[in-house]
């Protein structure tokens, strides 16, 4: 189903349909994440991927034309690069431990401590929140600063553009 959505996105020339289809794709991805027991991530995917980014795409679409331009070149080189990268990534997954293998290195490092002592040490039943905000507090601070930087970047770029427009008028 997700593959069908991707094919439809690539084949579609109407950008409005592409935006709606990418929203559909995000919702499908969210259901996959729920099936993988990653409820927190699924929630983020549904709200950001399907909600906010769809709105932002529509806002951008309002500023441009609704139809995609005919590509100038035949897309062979990008296709080769994409297929080669995909093949390398799939080759890389062969070296990973089997899915949900309890002996995998990732399950033997800090994860047992989080699972065994997390509730006792933090008193927070949701392990994801405990790891995110407490054990990995620095990482989350970094993430928050990334979000802050993104917002600051948008403000600076669009403000400057507004100022330049004024200069051009004078």
């Amino acid at each position: 189903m997700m593959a069908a959505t991707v094919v439809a996105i690539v084949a579609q020339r109407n950008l409005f349909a592409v935006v709606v289809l990418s929203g559909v794709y995000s919702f499908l991805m969210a259901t996959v994440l729920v099936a993988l027991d990653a409820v927190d991530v699924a929630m983020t995917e549904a709200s950001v991927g399907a909600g906010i980014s769809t709105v932002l795409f529509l806002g951008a679409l309002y500023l441009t034309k609704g139809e995609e331009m005919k590509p100038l070149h035949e897309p062979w080189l990008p296709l080769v690069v994409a297929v080669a990268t995909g093949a390398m990534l799939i080759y890389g997954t062969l070296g990973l431990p089997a899915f949900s293998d309890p002996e995998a290195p990732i399950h033997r490092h800090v994860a047992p401590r989080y699972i065994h002592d997390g509730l006792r040490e933090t008193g927070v039943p949701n392990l994801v929140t405990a790891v995110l905000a407490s054990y990995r507090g620095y990482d989350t601070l970094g993430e928050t600063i990334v979000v802050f930087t993104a917002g600051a970047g948008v403000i600076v770029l669009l403000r400057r553009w507004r100022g330049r427009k004024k200069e051009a008028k004078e």
Partner: protein
Amino acid sequence: MSGDLVLRVVAKLLIAFMLLFALYVQFHGDFGPGGGFQAGVIAAAAIIFYGIIYGLPAARKVVPSRVVETMVGLGVLIYAGVGVLGIVLGGNYLDYFVLSGDPVNGQHRGIFWVEAGVAVTVAGVMIKIFYMFAGRGRNGEPEA
């Protein structure tokens, strides 16, 4: 602004529940799925929804741009402030155990404020990006 009566009535009904759900996700994040990031996005979505239905000027009246810009920085400051508070109270940076007499209670407090900081910044950034994009007219002239 959308003139559709159904949309406007439904929006008015839904926005209250969206904000309530955002608060639920924020404060119930310790026990169920969710947390600051998701709550911030949902709260921002409620405001953006309002902006889409009732028009950007109406949304700007409810949540002025200056408030949004303050939120963007305030969230990071809350987060970093919790870290500094840890140092002031004799622990390490972002050390929550010292925030209260009981270590587990301290963890609770630390996580609460950190999540609040994340939610404030995320909501601020999302609303700000929406304002910025929606505020541009079709032919490149800023409308507001």
